């Protein structure tokens, strides 16, 4: 359905390594995906799978070791100095920890105005109007709260301020890195709804990184599942959740807890723990925990292959699509 459109963001073979020599870890080991204009791609996985590093590498906050990132036809990796700072304003990022992402010693209207002040794009009264407008949009009264310091706000409010700041330069792509995981359920719902509203109003494209499967499904059009630095499955949200093709996705969904006493009693629980990224398994990275693994999985690393329209999976033995 999206094949005819040009992707807004195109990532191919992205690799990010940390450390040196024997301690070298490939946190992201060859990740490719595309995000089309106006859609939300969810990136889900457990801790240490490299989902956050992928997000940071897109912004060049961590330097990718290899691979290409193309935003709207511009090569992000080739940018340097001012051009790099400039391209960063076309994508924005919201962080996990709402408190630490705002400077505690600045007033919130200055925090929201920071990008404008950096670029001197809007100044004077126009700037003030824009800031008030942005704060109002995210549900914070600029007259009452504009002059307060960031440390006086609760987690949910801080996240609203972060959103306002990220929208100031009218970016095309918004990367949300675990942005609701530190919030209470009732506040989380408010923020998620706000994000959906703003996405339509500002015509945003979203990369939504989270560990919570239910949250990711709620906001995403398509979902990519990561395991140990690689994408193991990517596809439309509803189909992927309905009929996961990768065994890991299936176990992940099986482990997700539904707030419903009538929900089916949990099937098989995935045993063991993810291996160390210092020393990833040969072949398929999931084979050490996979009940279906064979010799082939040890030897050959599976590549992403299309199993249904727009649904790709990296597994030698994808689960049958017909199975519910």
């Amino acid at each position, binding site marked *: 359905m999206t094949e005819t459109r040009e992707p807004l963001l195109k990532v191919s073979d992205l690799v990010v390594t940390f450390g040196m020599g024997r301690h070298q870890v490939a946190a992201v080991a060859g990740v490719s995906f595309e995000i089309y204009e106006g859609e939300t791609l969810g990136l889900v996985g457990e801790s240490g799978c490299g989902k956050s590093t992928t997000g940071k590498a897109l912004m060049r906050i961590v330097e990718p070791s290899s691979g290409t990132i193309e935003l709207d036809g511009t090569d992000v990796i080739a940018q340097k100095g001012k051009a790099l700072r400039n391209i960063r304003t076309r994508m924005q990022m919201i962080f996990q920890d709402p408190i630490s992402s705002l400077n505690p010693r600045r007033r919130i209207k200055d925090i929201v105005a920071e990008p404008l002040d950096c670029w001197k794009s809007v100044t004077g009264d126009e700037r003030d109007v824009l800031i008030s407008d942005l704060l109002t949009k995210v549900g914070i009264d600029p007259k009452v709260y504009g002059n307060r310091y960031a440390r006086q706000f609760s987690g949910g409010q801080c996240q609203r301020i972060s959103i306002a700041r990220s929208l100031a330069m009218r970016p095309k792509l918004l990367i949300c890195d675990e942005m609701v995981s530190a919030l209470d359920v009732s506040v989380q719902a408010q923020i998620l709804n706000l994000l959906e509203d703003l996405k339509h109003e500002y015509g945003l494209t979203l990369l939504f990184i989270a560990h919570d499967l239910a949250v990711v499904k709620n906001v995403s059009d398509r979902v990519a599942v990561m395991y140990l630095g690689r994408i193991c499955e990517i596809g439309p949200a509803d189909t992927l959740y309905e009929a996961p093709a990768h065994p890991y996705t299936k176990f*992940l969904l099986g482990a997700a807890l539904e707030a419903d006493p009538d929900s089916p009693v949990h099937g098989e629980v995935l045993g063991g723990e993810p291996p160390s990224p210092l020393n990833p398994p040969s072949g398929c990275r999931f084979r050490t925990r996979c009940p279906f693994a064979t010799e082939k999985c040890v030897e050959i690393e599976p590549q992403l292959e299309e199993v249904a329209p727009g649904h790709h999976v990296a597994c030698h033995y994808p689960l049958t699509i017909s199975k519910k």
Partner: protein
Amino acid sequence: MSVEQEKLLVVKDLATTFHTAGGDLPAVGGVSFDMERNQTIGIVGESGSGKTVLSRTIMGLQQRTNVTVTGSVLLSGFEMVGASEDDKRKRWGTEVAMIFQDPMTSLNPVMKVGKQIDETLRVRLGMSKVDAKARAIELLELVGIPSPQYRYDAYPGQLSGGMRQRVVIAIALACSPQLLLADEPTTGLDVTIQAQILNLLEELKERLEMSVVLVTHDLGVVATRTSRIIVMYAGRIVEIGSTREVFAGHRMPYTRALLESSPKVSNASHTRLTTIPGRPPNLLKLTDGCSFAPRCSYATDKCRVERPELQAADEPGHMFACWNPLPKTRRTVRK
């Protein structure tokens, strides 16, 4: 009286107040409930609801300075509130034990994990060094730690989060307590590890014939693993009942808000979430009325001035605190 003695835990009018620089902070206010043996109950609430403080007060673990505890906690007939540290200490570990939220900080970082287990065995049960070590290795095996002989000599920093939480469980179970208080035992763990730990707890509960109090913010954790649920808001119980009844026949608007505002895997993507405005109240500035009234769409003037007490619903054991409860229809959670 004799009925109460049979019960494992009877909590009556329990209140915990912290005396802070900003004034008195009623973290738990007037909580009453009781618990049978071999039962698992869940305590659910958002941050600031008092669920963690409640579990620590039941255990009697709060520090002595700047805290006032009133009411009563009868643990197998023994009054924990106001008991001396020595009397409480005799019951800690053997009658009631606790698992903490963050396995990163709840183990002593400079002590081998094996030593942390057999310390309990030696001090509390008077075991010899050799016996204690053998038992500690058994316990490590019981909680599903691979190659326990080898792990016995590991420091907490050398284990993953899931493994550490297993060690914490092993320590808690060392003196076979009758009641296990688990305070957010899986928050901070990955989904697949969380499932492992919850299954382990359930299995051990059956095997060792314990009772478990599962304290959590996540309704998914308690939905299928508890027989009763307590919903807390601003330090008070707002609804209590059998798990099924609380999920399907809840009467308190807050319970509904909590259930409906969390996204569900079974819902289609882009399902609009139902939200309640605002956030949990400042405990330093509580009013006389219902604490939830400022966020509640059913609130009336009465709600704002008079606090509702728990009242019985139709099903025995199901109670709620609300002046304008939701109608008595049975809602189906699943569509």
